[in-house]
């Protein structure tokens, strides 16, 4: 790995020309917290790489801006940058919370938001939250640009729709309109530097004692971060009482098992997913903990 070439383009155009230059062994690096560790461990996902394009110095891929009810986060923005941003702390608290649970200060100072979902590990902590917020991503190539929902972009564990001549340039998160309450939950083996075993992101809006809108997404317990549109539709319009909240939690557990199949860990994870989901719903609807 020592003799790979590393190029640091200053503009997106330069970076796109590099990755379209015909070298099949070219890859993109930002924070490097997955790439460097993966290459060192001989992961086949990074096998054959002989050149890396460092996108940390491309202005178009940095920064956080809010306009027209949409927060645009540069693809190469670090988690530390996101956590310290006032708009995100105020308007997208679940995202701030999820970013704050990633790795350690050292990791968050380097690791980037696009790195998290382009790598697309099942346990990627920002993915459930970004899904719950209905995020879309912007992708550019020399041929032009395309925008698509994050949910469509993510295909399978460690696989996305990104083509080899494309770079994710930003992620757009629409500010939830309405009176949403919700939370992000992460369970790992310890509180810091832990690979998530269960993550849940949840947003719920109550209108006149009924569930007006519901958004639930999971990570780590599903092969990739997953939104549960079916459950959301099933329960929207229902009375927001304890019985309904319990039914939602119960359905979520069943659905997770349907997606992943029964595993050795299901006996533990199923009740935990259901109980956590119920607690999160309860706190969102009634306030306080249960």
């Amino acid at each position, binding site marked *: *790995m*020592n*003799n*790979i*070439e*590393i190029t*640091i383009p200053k503009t997106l155009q330069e970076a796109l020309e590099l990755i379209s230059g015909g070298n099949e062994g070219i890859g993109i*690096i930002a*924070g*490097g*917290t997955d790439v*460097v*560790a993966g290459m*060192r*461990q001989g992961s086949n996902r990074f096998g054959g790489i002989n050149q*890396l394009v*460092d996108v*940390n110095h491309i202005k178009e891929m940095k920064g956080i801006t809010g306009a027209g009810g949409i927060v645009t986060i540069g693809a190469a923005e670090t988690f*530390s940058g996101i956590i310290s941003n006032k708009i995100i702390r105020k308007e997208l608290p679940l995202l701030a919370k999820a970013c704050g649970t990633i*790795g*350690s*200060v*050292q*990791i968050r*100072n*380097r690791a980037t938001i696009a790195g998290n979902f382009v790598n697309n590990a099942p346990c990627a902590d920002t993915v459930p939250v970004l899904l719950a917020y209905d995020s879309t991503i912007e992708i550019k190539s020399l041929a032009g640009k395309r925008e698509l929902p994050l949910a469509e972009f993510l295909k399978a564990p460690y696989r996305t729709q990104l083509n080899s001549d494309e770079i994710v340039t930003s992620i757009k998160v629409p500010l939830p309109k309405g009176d949403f309450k919700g939370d992000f939950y992460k369970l790992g083996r310890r*509180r*810091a*530097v832990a690979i998530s075993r269960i993550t849940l992101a949840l947003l719920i809006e109550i209108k006149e004692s009924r569930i007006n809108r519901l958004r639930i997404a999971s990570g780590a317990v599903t092969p990739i971060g997953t939104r549960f549109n079916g459950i959301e539709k099933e329960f929207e319009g229902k009375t927001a009482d304890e019985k309904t909240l319990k039914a939602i939690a119960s359905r979520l557990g069943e659905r997770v098992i349907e997606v992943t199949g029964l595993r050795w860990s299901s006996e533990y994870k199923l009740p935990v997913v259901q109980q956590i989901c119920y607690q999160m719903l309860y706190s969102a609807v009634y306030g306080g903990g249960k």
Partner: protein
Amino acid sequence: MINLKFKLNGEKVSVKTEAGVRLIDLLRNNFGLTGTKEGCGVGECGACTVLMNKKAVNSCLVLAGQLAGASIETIESLAEGEMLHPLQRNFLEHGAVQCGYCTPGMILSAYALLDENPSPDEEEIKEAIAGNLCRCTGYKQIMDSIKATADELNSKNK
């Protein structure tokens, strides 16, 4: 091979290296700065923590070819001659050093914290060193040392 120029412990340096060499190897092998330790090599233990543009990073996850123009500070930059930095002195005085392997990284994480937040509370200190594993002290003495340093620096600056 590339001709790499960056700032190391306050001085401009240049070095001939392969681009894919990790920062930790560059520091130890090319500059003889062996205060930076390698533990896990995958960003979990924090023994290799250095400051990159004033922020704590794992030097096992940064490649030489990514450094151009960066400013790197290692544990060797903290003491002024024979005079230890207050963090180093307090680590010794509070018994926060046993085997010492985690100490350089731990001190640099604490240094970065105090640089940004001169009066951290206990939770903030815990958060700042959550990425630095210590298997000897049990962390209590480390927390005490950082708190004592913050108090000391704050009373000096009054």
